[in-house]
């Protein structure tokens, strides 16, 4: 178990440890799907690199095969080998068990955060001129109607946000309103959570249907205030 073989093993293990245990020290833990993806890429890389030439292959797989076949293996290694040979079927058995047993976890939900808007909203444009007064007015409406959930800092962490799943959108994140046109926000604010299509899971969204309470003009102003406050620019085609 020396030489070329040890590096790929250490590398794969190291990537796993970093993703699984080190990264969560600094940020939110990664979902297992992502860890699996990155480990799969690492293993693919190891396989590609170690099969580039006969010598490299021999260097890595030779010891593995000798170890597995038990040839010239003795002492502690022989015990390790037997242990592995027992462990492998058990691992497969455990995998099978956990995939056939009725799941203890609720069904995975994969909500599309930005589903496509209905056609009649996609082509709208903001009729309100972008003046400082209008932006200010929009920020005022935002503070009154939106900030309880979306937060005074536009980060989705308002005082009323805690109980909702999915959580309110974080407008500071470059993956939200910065990717969208103003008309998209108009649709989302006007028709609210219940206006979403199936893939957006409208039954889970707490977003109010603001068309009941606000005029279109107010909504457009809120949009301007929101972009300005979150230091984002809407997607445009000019």
């Amino acid at each position, binding site marked *: 178990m020396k030489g070329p073989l040890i590096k790929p093993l250490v590398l794969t293990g190291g990537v796993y440890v970093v993703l699984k245990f080190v990264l969560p020290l600094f940020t939110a833990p990664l979902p297992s799907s992502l860890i699996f993806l990155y480990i799969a890429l690492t293993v693919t890389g190891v396989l590609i690199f170690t099969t580039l030439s006969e010598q490299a292959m021999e260097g890595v797989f030779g010891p593995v*095969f000798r170890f597995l076949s038990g040839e010239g293996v003795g002492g502690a290694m022989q015990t390790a080998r037997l242990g592995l040979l027992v462990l492998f079927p058990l691992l497969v058995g455990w995998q099978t068990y956990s995939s056939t047993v009725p799941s203890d976890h609720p069904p995975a939900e994969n909500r599309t955060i930005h589903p496509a808007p209905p056609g009649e909203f996609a082509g709208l444009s903001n009729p309100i001129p972008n003046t400082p007064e209008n932006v200010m007015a929009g920020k005022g409406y935002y503070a009154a109607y939106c900030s309880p959930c979306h937060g005074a800092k536009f980060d989705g962490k308002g005082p009323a946000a805690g109980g909702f799943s999915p959580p309110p959108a974080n407008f500071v994140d470059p993956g939200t309103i910065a990717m969208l046109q103003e008309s998209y926000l108009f649709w989302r604010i006007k028709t609210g959570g219940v206006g979403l299509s199936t893939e957006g899971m409208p039954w889970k969204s707490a977003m109010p249907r603001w068309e009941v309470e606000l005029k279109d003009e107010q909504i457009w102003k809120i949009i301007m205030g929101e972009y300005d406050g979150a230091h984002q620019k809407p997607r445009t085609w000019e």
Partner: protein
Amino acid sequence: MRMRKSGHRAGLLLFIGMLFPGTMGLPVAGWAQESVAVRATLIADAVPDDPTASAWNAIAPSEFPLSPQVHWPTRILQVTVQSVKARAIHNGKDVAIMLEYADPTEDPDDAAAVEFMVGEKKAHFAHGQPMAQVEGGPVNIWFWKNKDGKAVDMTAKGFGTLKAQDDQDVKAKGAYANGEWKVVFTRPVTTANNETDTQFKPGDFVNISFAVWDGKKEAGGDLKEKGSQKAISSWWYFRLDPAPNYTPYGYAALAIALAAGFQFVVIRKLKKGSST
């Protein structure tokens, strides 16, 4: 030479085969349980309908944060109760759900409720209000109020449609101690009303959400929270634990045998391969 090669290939397969289950299994196993579901423990005896029953102590609670109801006017932006703990027990016939939450004062108008979707259609958590692009279904609400001392089994499909059902299947009992409410709802696992009552099936996850009202009277005599002014959660999951099932062990045993056989063949091939 050829034999050696085929041995190599088989060995490679084994190597990859060993690597992947390991990497797939570990991340899944490593997750700590975060509350996203209430799981009703299966017991043999009658389910406890009293919040003080000792049976509840054996069950770990799931905790869910609450928010003020903002979805619909009239809304308030501050609520007393910030989170609710839930436990559940069932015995195949009856199910009991206990809510537990901190409320500094005991008031006659204190109230709590749980809500479920009914049937296959999805329903919005705000009383199943209509959705623009999805055909929604009704919700079933179990409502308890301190001064009434009982549960009301209700149905809604959209705002203003909330009403008590003709068949009242739910019982409830509340107990206040040390600044904390404990409220137990009990109901048969299945009822005769498929249209308006949620039906449980052990092993299946259904959606659940919670609501709590602090019935404290403010200086002016108005209630602090009432009607749509309440603390709520959006949808989480609820499940009755299924009766033990041993078939997965059978599959696992089969898989172990297959894996061992595969391993045996591969190693034999490897040995043959390296000896030529």
